[in-house]
């Protein structure tokens, strides 16, 4: 076994290497780094991540089932909103530093529109379709991807939005924070999922650091872009159709009757 100093040394060289690698992987045009591909996680870890994923998806499904009794039109609404969120999550957002494009997560936006539990279900649907028909993500890693993208993205995004609204931030700033923190939390969770499954006999946090650094050059600016994008979209939706948002988050929005400038209403 190596002694402690040598281990520190080894970890930090690996970090430097990971940084270089991260820079290298900036260049392939679209980056799908967020999706853990099929086969990367060993069977036991894949199963572990399925547990929270199934739990939250089932809660979300129960909430939808209850709502279908109250609002009959909710299924087509959620289906089409889900399709919109799916498409938003494959939007190519231009990353200014590199000139390449990357993709937002989309679930923070979904959570603001339909609430975090339902957004988790929609995220799970989107991840399944992406895994099956576009080969992004996987079936055994579906659970892990639900946890990092749908669950953490939705809840952190939603939480950030509510907290910033409570602090009297404007809708743009609150939605920016939702996108920013939702995206970064997703990225951190994905790194943790990879590190915990793959660190072997080495240090968990060393591996976590290496993976975080490897993806940092794309994911840190992407979080800011996701924030700008989420802020822009939520502001636009609020200006044109404020009732769409007030129905889902009743107490967060204060009525602003004069916010509509050139809107359709």
């Amino acid at each position, binding site marked *: 076994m190596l002694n402690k100093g040598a281990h520190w040394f080894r970890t930090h*060289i*690996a970090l*430097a*290497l*990971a940084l270089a*690698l991260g820079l290298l*992987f900036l260049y*392939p045009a679209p980056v799908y*780094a967020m999706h853990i*591909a*099929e*086969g*990367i996680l*060993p*069977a036991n870890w894949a199963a572990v991540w399925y547990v929270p994923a199934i739990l939250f998806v089932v809660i979300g499904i129960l909430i939808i*089932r209850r709502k279908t009794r109250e609002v009959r*039109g909710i*299924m*087509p*609404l*959620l*289906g*089409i909103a*889900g*399709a*919109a969120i*799916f*498409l938003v999550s*494959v*939007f*190519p957002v231009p990353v*200014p530093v590199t000139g390449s494009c990357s993709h937002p997560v989309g679930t923070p936006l979904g959570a603001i*529109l339909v609430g975090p539990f339902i957004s988790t*279900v*929609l995220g799970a*649907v*989107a991840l*399944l*379709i992406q*895994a*099956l*028909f*576009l*080969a*992004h993500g*996987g079936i*055994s890693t579906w659970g892990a991807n639900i946890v990092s993208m749908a669950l953490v993205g939705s809840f952190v995004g939603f939480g950030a939005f509510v907290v910033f609204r409570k602090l009297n931030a404007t809708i743009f700033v609150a939605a920016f924070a939702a996108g920013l923190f939702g995206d970064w939390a997703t990225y951190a969770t994905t790194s943790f999922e990879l590190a915990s499954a*793959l660190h*072997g006999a080495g240090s968990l946090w060393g591996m976590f650091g*290496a993976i975080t650094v490897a993806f940092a050059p794309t994911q840190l600016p992407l979080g800011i872009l996701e924030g*700008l*994008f989420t802020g*822009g*979209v*939520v502001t*636009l*939706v609020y200006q*044109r*159709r404020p009732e*769409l948002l007030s129905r889902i988050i009743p107490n967060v929005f204060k009525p602003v009757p004069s916010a509509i400038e050139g809107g359709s209403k």
Partner: protein
Amino acid sequence: MFDSSHIFSDSFAHKENLVTGIEARTKVAFTVIALVINLLSPTVYTPLAIALFCLAALIAIGIPSRLLVLRLAMPLVMAGVVVITQIFFYGTTALFIIPFWGFNLVGYEEGLARGLLIMSRVIGGVSLIIFLSMSTPANKLLLAAAWFRVPKIFIELTLLVYRYIFVLLEEIITIRDAQRVRLGYYNWRRSMRSLSILGGSLILRAYDRAERVFEAMIARGYTGTMTIAYTEHFGRRDFVAAVCLSAILAILYLIGQVQA
């Protein structure tokens, strides 16, 4: 943005051939069991055999090999990062040493072996998934899932999402083209602004469309839930296919055992 690389895999599944002819439930069961075998395999041989079988079957039914490579390429980028972290983190037996800015980077033998195993599992797993999705249309896949007792609301939601992805995609292309001729993507600032407007308009149109779709569904007797029933027949041909696929599964499992 939405070029040919984004064609959904199941656009090939509507053709009639040997693989698409296999009943959907059989294929779903085969894929799931094979995915487990793939994940549990101790050697690289089983995953590679799985990949070989799936890719050969897909090429035999006329899927362009370029598309298969494209589908495999994206997961492999991530697998590449994982392999490299494994080489430098895992194990104790030094395989090679690279001088790196005055440091010595040590690559380990066990790490390389583990990295290659993970890489082969990615290839095997992704091949299995595209084998399923390129030979089975989405609606059959979801009806098969309903037969396996997946919650009805989840199936209904997935069917709706799947259907409206294509409808909304057309709207995106229309809006984006209109923005483009007005120099909406002239520089980065304007691109971000245009993208936000595009996303916002998409959500608003989605809500408007949902109201119209709901009215249309009501007019056709929708009561709040869709009726989902699996009606396909499990005939003698399907039985033969199921036996053959089970035999293949057994062989794939044994390959791993023999080599280990």
